[in-house]
């Protein structure tokens, strides 16, 4: 549970820095507004995309269905402990 929260906070802060803080640091120029819009939109879209995939995998309703051989290989490659 903690790991879930930590990852969530890290990524939100990461995209938040890019999308909310960085626009204030853009130097004055002809393209200042454009760059601000670009940064905000990019970070919003990318954060939302990441968030949807993260939340969907948090509480899966069903697990992966593996063929017998693939299951054996994974069991030996990745081990049985987390």
């Amino acid at each position: 549970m903690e790991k879930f929260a930590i990852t969530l906070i890290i990524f939100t802060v990461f995209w938040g820095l890019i999308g909310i803080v960085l626009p204030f640091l853009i130097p004055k120029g002809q393209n200042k507004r454009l760059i601000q819009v670009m940064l905000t939109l990019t970070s919003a879209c990318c954060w939302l995309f990441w968030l949807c995939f993260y939340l969907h995998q948090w509480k899966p309703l069903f697990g992966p269905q593996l063929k017998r051989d693939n299951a054996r290989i994974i069991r030996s490659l990745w081990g049985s402990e987390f």
Partner: protein
Amino acid sequence: MTLCQLFLQPDAAYSCISELGELGIVQFRDLNPNVNSFQRKYVNEVRRCEEMERKLRFLETEIKKDELPIYDPEDNPDAPKPREMIDLEATFEKLDHELKEINTNADALLRNFNELTELKHNLTMTQGFFDDAEMAFTPAHNRNQRDSDDDQVQLLYEYSMISHNKLGFITGVVPRERMVAFERMLWRVCRGNVFLRQAEIPELIEDPVSGEKLHKTVFVVFFQGEQLKNRVQKICEGFRANIYPCPENPHERRELAMGVMTRLEDLTVVLSQTQDHRQRVLAATSRNLRTWQIKVKKIKAIYHTMNMFNNDVARKCLIAECWAPVSELDRIQLALRKGSEASGGGTVSSVLNRMVTREQPPTHHKLNKFTQGFQNLVDAYGVATYREINPMPFVLITFPFLFAVMFGDAGHGILVTIFALWMVLKERSLKDKWRNQEVWTIFFGGRYIILLMGIFSIYTGIIYNDVFSKSLNIFGSSWRVRFGDDTLAKHDSVMLEPTPYNYTRSGDYRQMFSGTPYPIGLDPVWQLADNKITYTNSVKMKFAIIIGITQMGFGLFLSLWNHLHFNHRHAIYLEFLPQIIFLACIFFYLIILIFYKWTSFDGSKATDAPSLLIHLINMILFSYKTDPPSAAVFYTGQKQFQTFLILLAVLCVPWMLLGKPIYRIVMNKRRANYSTVTNHAAGNDSDVEEQHQDEFHDPAEKRGVVLDADVRDTDTEDMLDDEHSHQQHHQHEVEMSEVWVEQGIHTIEYFLGCISHTASYLRLWALSLAHAQLSEVLWHMILHLGLSMNGYGGAIASFFVFMPWSSLTVFILLLMEGLSAFLHALRLHWVEFQSKFYKGEGYPFVPFSFRLLLDEAPVEA
């Protein structure tokens, strides 16, 4: 943007226009639209320019024929003064004349040369014939060496000696391929009474008439009598054989031969000198050619522009009307002053006068090379109405993002990014290459778009965990296989346990999911799972709906911004509010439900998890069954809350349908009351003055009442022309039926559109699925075949398998899928996003700019 009137002195007009052309921020209007182009004032100058262009084109073809390089000018030459134009014309005329002379001379000399060459061969060969004939009459002891030819010649000679009739002969040259037909024709026509001897010329000769190199044969035809002579001559003409006179006397022949040789030598020298002269002339021209072309183009453009002006005879000046951005007026004034000074410092400088108008100005966006591509995408649908919000800065990011959601493969994204980076970094050198290839110019023009698409595709590929249909395991999967060998032996396939804690009462439970999701993107275990598609379908569809509704909501807020800008207070309450409430009640609620489902239901409650689609449908149908658990209510108060939302949403429909027309009716009535009041008060005042009073009474309302598309930022508060206010008077009386119909269409379009557009966003899911599956097919059916073989055979197979895999990847996945995703992302923006706020009824601002003019004309490489 403001409409300006320019009053130009006729002498200064040319240089002023030249300065404005260099500046490139003014769009001139045609003040003589009904005048035929042949009747305009400066038609002669335009004609002269076109004549000059024709000469320049001729010079260019000549230079290209000799394959000389043409130098591009580094700097931008100014438009020359009118006096210079005469000099240019004279120069071109001289060059044109000179070159034509050189060409005709060279042609004549060449023809002469070829004829002489043929004559030379002719003489050599016929010399051979007559030598043979003489040899036949050497002393008897040589007679043993005779062969059949000599027999014939001897007979000839004897016959001529005997009959004392001079045998006439004609010598000439004929193309080798026609020789046989020639001979046969001679035989038939002259009934075998002529004697032909031939010898082939070994080397290729250039035909004097046609100029092509052929193999030719020299022939001699002997005949007796005038009739035969005529016949032979006619046949020779028919076969286009060149006849050359050949003296009978060997002594004369030798003299002629020597004369021909000397003449040939002289001609060779003259020809080479002519060629050198031509090269020199062309080389000198090639250095200046491009500069001249640019200058002539500029002159022509200036005169075309001046043709659009109104020549006011009374005030002795030219009047021009143009659209110009308000912020650039200072620069325009400066340019005008420069132009007036340059043309000889006239006493009165040109005057710029701002005009007031009700016409819609052209739409001008300040762009750079990066934003130009995206603006083209938006403008392809429709140019923004004057002063409405430009969707381009938002499309700049959301378009590549939605493309990437559909493209979603990091490996393919890397390839696309590399291609785009190459185009962007090598911009300068690639700019003028392959200008004739339309496909390349399209790709090159969109290089920044492709770059952004590629970068976003890498990101979405990482989130989908898809690199050429393989997944990366960077952080360690959250899933482990904890089945024993006996379970695995019993079943062909096993499904891992999704709940991370023991929810069963039994001890059989084994934790296979760590409880923490894979940090970035999809867990790598799914790549091996049989039910991967079922799992990813769910998340991709949900994401597509979320991003779609978010984008549509964003579009609605942009329409709010538009309303605020144009000060359409009524539109905010009567259009924006019902729209946003409807969207929120149904679709924002859906998004909340999606997030709720993600966070509240886990594997232990999998069978009870609500199907959101069924719940949405039931919400609208007001049906609340408890039968399948996925349709049962899953939070307390759901039924009441949802009913409330639906009722609120339904209320929005008549709100939007009736609101605006009723407002219009009320406004019209108020206007009618006002004007009747002022009518009585003013008495016999003209209509115009009433309107003035009307306007000054209600400045704030005036803007709001006039039809939406008409309000613009021209300075209508200050002055009002008589005619313009008259127009406004008519605009108040707008057809009410039109308003009702328009509003009805808008309402239906919006409300039905909300639902259909939301579903339309599901194409994001569909195309990403297709892309992923195509990629996987290519892997399993092609590349895997080579990689799965062992040993040296496997190495060779891998080598051969790479070619079809890579070419299919590029052509099907990158090009075809890329084009498809591009198209669908574009459609989503044009229809689903922009229909919420964009009118797109403007026309573009096309300034009179030399730079634009010269860029447009394709430089023939």
